[in-house]
């Protein structure tokens, strides 16, 4: 190999990059505060699944009491009812999603009165119309439909209202009550919570009423949805329940965090031993990979679960694979007698196709998991997919630049340093 001069510009570049990585890692993992600008450390900003925070996860199966299939309208009304219930006990950020045709998954993180929440969620909705003396006028079974709509009132102004439509039995009951309570207030209660208290203006005998005084069409819509939910001929049965106490969640998080640090360190050391000079670069690229992945996951609001962490560690292995493929290629090229720079160029070029083909197949598995899986399996799939994409980027783009700069510095010209 011909003697190259030491290239000061490249050395400065290399030192600059290493410093930049250290600063970025510091800000990311320790946090940074300047005056009002506060960048929290990533451990606190990333969203954790409830296997790491503790919480309740329940899948409810809806069955129609009238024997028919549960419609998707009925499911969405049920979802509104459930979220109303959870809000009423004042817990933070529940996730309620429809799963399949007739199931609803409810996840509530960091909740202490778990069993209480569970019995509340699974309860059949109790909707009641009460008179001023708290006597029950009618129940959810007597209501046929309810909608939030815009209606023109007597002075020609468009106003949002909630319409009510009663069935035969309900029409009669409501007619009697409205005759009796003209000028008084009727309370509409869902699960013992008053959701609306309209005043009776006239006796309504045709089975169709409107509730005025809604602030917006949205508000009218959600009240109507609650009423529909309370009128649903649907019973809910929990088919899958998982609760994790806050202590277990926190312990899992700490233990797993340490396990990850050990695992990643082991990989970093292995790469150093296996590839020496190139190993340093692969390690830098790997650290960049982990940082980009964590930032992306935070930005995309991906929930990090235990299987997700396993996926993350697995993608560390895959990120290494791309580098291994490249370095092995460079070695082969170098053995054929090519100069270091040519070997590097050819190595990257040749390895690229292999990297794409081998990662594409893993991506296929990731997407299948995402579309056919549910709950935590999906979280794992997202981590896997993001990991593959980011690792291809760091291996192909970042490692290549790092290798080129290192060689250009001219500091290390013996092949042994590169493990060749």
């Amino acid at each position, binding site marked *: 190999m011909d003697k190259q001069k030491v290239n000061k510009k490249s050395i400065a570049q290399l030192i600059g990059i290493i410093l930049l990585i250290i600063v970025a890692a510091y800000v990311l993992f320790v946090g940074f505060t300047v005056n009002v600008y506060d960048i929290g450390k990533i451990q606190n900003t990333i969203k954790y699944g409830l*296997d790491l925070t503790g919480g309740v996860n329940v899948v409810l199966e809806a069955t129609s009491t009238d024997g028919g299939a549960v419609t998707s309208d009925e499911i969405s009304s049920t979802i509104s009812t459930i979220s109303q219930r959870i809000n009423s006990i004042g817990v933070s950020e529940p996730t309620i999603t429809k799963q399949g045709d007739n199931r609803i998954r409810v996840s509530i993180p960091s909740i202490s009165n778990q069993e209480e929440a569970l*019995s509340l969620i699974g309860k059949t909705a109790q909707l009641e119309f009460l008179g001023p003396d708290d006597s029950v006028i009618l129940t959810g079974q007597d209501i046929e439909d309810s909608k939030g709509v815009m209606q023109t009132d007597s002075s020609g102004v468009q106003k949002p209202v909630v319409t009510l439509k009663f069935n035969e039995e309900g029409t009669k009951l409501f007619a009697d009550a409205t005759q009796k309570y003209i000028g008084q207030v009727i309370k509409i209660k869902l699960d013992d919570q008053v959701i609306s208290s309209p005043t009776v203006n006239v006796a309504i005998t045709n089975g169709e009423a409107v509730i005025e005084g809604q602030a917006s069409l949205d508000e009218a819509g959600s009240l109507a949805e609650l009423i529909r939910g309370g009128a649903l001929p649907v019973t809910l049965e929990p088919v899958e329940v998982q609760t994790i106490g806050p202590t*277990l969640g926190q312990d899992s998080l700490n233990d797993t965090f340490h396990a990850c640090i050990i695992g990643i360190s082991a990989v970093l050391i292995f790469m150093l031993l296996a590839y020496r000079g190139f190993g340093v670069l692969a390690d830098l690229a790997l650290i960049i990979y982990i940082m980009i992945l964590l930032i992306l996951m935070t930005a995309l609001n991906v929930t990090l679960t235990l299987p997700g962490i396993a996926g993350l*560690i697995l993608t560390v292995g895959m990120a290494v*694979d791309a580098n291994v493929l490249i370095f092995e290629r460079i070695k082969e090229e170098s053995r054929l007698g090519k100069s270091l720079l040519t070997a590097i160029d050819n190595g990257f070029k040749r390895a690229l196709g*292999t990297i794409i083909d081998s990662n594409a197949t893993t*991506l296929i598995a990731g997407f299948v998991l995402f579309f*056919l899986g549910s709950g935590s*399996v999906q979280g794992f799939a997202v981590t896997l997919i993001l990991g593959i994409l980011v690792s291809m980027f760091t291996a192909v783009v970042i490692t290549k630049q790092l290798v080129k700069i290192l060689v250009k510095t001219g500091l290390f010209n013996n092949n042994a340093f590169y493990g060749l």
Partner: protein
Amino acid sequence: MKKNLNIAKNVKIWFGISLVLITISLGSLLIQGLNFGIDFIGGTIISIELHTPFENADARAIVDKFDPSADVTYAGDAQTEVVITTKKSFTTEERQALFSGFQDKYSLQNTDLISVDTVNASIGAEAATNAVKAVVVAVALMLIYITFRFELISGITAIMALVHDLIVVVGVYSVFQIQVNSPFIAAILTILGYSIMDTVVVFDRIRENRPKFGKYAYGELLDASVTQTMRRSIFTSVATFVAITSLYIFGVPAIQNFALPLMVGVVIGTYSSIFNAGALWYVIKTYQHKKSLKTSGTKV
């Protein structure tokens, strides 16, 4: 230049090893089956922190009121946790009553209920069906991809190597009767992705080396390609294995359930991509070639 490995010449040995592994796996599956956890057969697992070592009989007395067939075991660093496992899926009321029973006896806080897991049997059966569906879809898509990027024979042999890996991983679970729960499915699908990635690298090299060898020199082509890619296969596998093993050793039980099948999968996936996938390809290619020689020979 290093000497090439003799993969092609010794196919019988490689296939023999794989055949033994598959026979053991399938045999165990037939005889003792899999030890399915509650995710698949339904049931309840409740863990409660009692803050004190306890007599099994005391715990039993409470649990028997709800299900006399339930298992009651110890857990935790100081053995102060009680874990109740049953095949019955308890209702919310039953669980609350059970926990109250412990609460009264050991004066516990609400937060001492460490974890609860209840799955209905119906949903469990569904999970199993979905898992099989996911595996079939993933395999079909991979076959299409490899056929499109390489050739049909590569695709088929890659899938055969993959099925081999899956059977062995499931076999390990059957032989050691390790409990199978839903993380197992995600792990299996990940192995699918990982193992095929390993195999594709070998086929990629065969494709690249092809012009350098005689048209029908399948054996030499295979040996050279596997030799060139073997270091990479082993290095990557070691790195991945080391990372996942750390999770297994230092992680919590929930993540261990996930890490263990991955560890087995990485090892067997590496074996099959070095010794099986390419070797199968070689055997089929050689057979096709001989057959075509024969048919053209008879015509002449």
